[in-house]
């Protein structure tokens, strides 16, 4: 008879971690598209153009790349968040999220070290880039990397579904 996987600490961490991280990524994308602090909400096009100004203040990419990134990143965050919440192909998407967060951390640390007085743009406008941003992004990166590692370990471990049924 088929049985559900027994609960372990690792599985508990995976479940809670991916739900939290997925939810956070969905909110991050939503905040960039909708600008929850504003009422009435401006059109999505305006929100994305405003997000482009935030990306541009990092002084990393040429204008055309900034505009393309601003148009795609919020949707990518929402899609990635949904995939993490669902838990489908977790190893792939958790690794992808780790790479994304690693990129964010590198950029944030670089900007902080350079003393750029800018907005983070992580969850919409209005959040200054401070040491708190660096620490928060670092903690999120650690969590995401932990989820990816656990997802790989979990895939290696023998699973009750794949084990032959006892007679």
């Amino acid at each position: 008879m088929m049985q559900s996987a027994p609960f372990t600490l690792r599985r508990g961490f995976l479940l809670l971690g991916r739900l939290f991280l997925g939810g956070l990524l969905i909110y991050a994308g939503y905040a960039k598209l909708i600008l929850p602090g504003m009422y009435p909400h401006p059109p999505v096009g305006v929100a994305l153009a405003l997000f482009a100004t935030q990306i541009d203040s990092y002084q990393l990419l040429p204008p055309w790349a900034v505009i393309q990134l601003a148009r795609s990143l919020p949707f990518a965050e929402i899609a990635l968040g949904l995939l993490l919440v669902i838990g489908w192909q977790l190893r792939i998407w958790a690794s992808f999220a780790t790479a994304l967060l690693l990129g964010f951390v590198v950029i944030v640390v670089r900007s902080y070290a350079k003393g750029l007085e800018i907005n983070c743009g992580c969850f919409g406008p209005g959040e200054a880039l401070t040491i708190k941003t660096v620490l928060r992004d670092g903690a999120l990166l650690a969590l995401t990397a932990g989820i990816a590692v656990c997802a790989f370990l979990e895939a290696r471990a023998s699973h009750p579904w794949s084990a032959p049924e006892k007679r």
Partner: protein
Amino acid sequence: MNRRSIRAGAIICALLAAGLFLGRELRHGLALKTGVASALPSPGDPSSTPAPVESAQPYSPSAKSPSVLATVEAAPLPKLAQATPAVPSIDPRKALGSKSAPITIEVFSDYQCPACRTLYVSVWRQLVDNYANTGKVYLVHRDFPLPVHAHSRVAAHYANAAAHIGKFEIVEQLLFEKQATWEQSGDVDGTVARVLTPAEMTKVRALVKGGTLEEGIKKDVELAQFYRVTQTPTSIITCKGQTYPVVGVQSYAVFHAFLDQLLSQK
């Protein structure tokens, strides 16, 4: 409960959340189209926001005219990205373009801040040519001298004095372009004297010594606190009653894309 049912449950939850999100946005869009939103607390509603202030009133540092700042002291600070009633009092001598332009950009800057200089040199001139001079944008300079910069307040005094005699634009340009020179020597007076006639310099010096200019700078700083500005340069862009904070230095192309997006709003 097996793994499949958990996964199915998660998918259903995600779809429900996506549905709720889309429904909310659709309802909001519908409300805007049918004018329902106008029944909601609006930027112009005096009960929901600080009272609007007559814009573009003549610059008078010593005048005790009512300003938005008087209201701000009593009212709690708003969220940064909140709709504001109107652009507060503007000194037309420190602004470029038409007062009736659909977009107002208030740039809070510090004459000694290198990033402010970069923004001025790389973006400001193009904004003046392509947006202010064509009546699309009203560009306003706001003083936000940071305490870490030894001479920025003095420079702001000189710029405001120059505004009084109608020479703001040329002095502002000079202060930013020659920033490296005067920030080391602290000789703001000598730098400004390069572009003004002796007669104009006499008037400027008298105004600087008069001590009346501080009030105008203080008003700008208080306005910055109202907008929750903490860094320079910060551009507060107002369009259709909404304020959008843009912090730091951007390239002109990205700024241009944002302004065009605002102008294309119906």
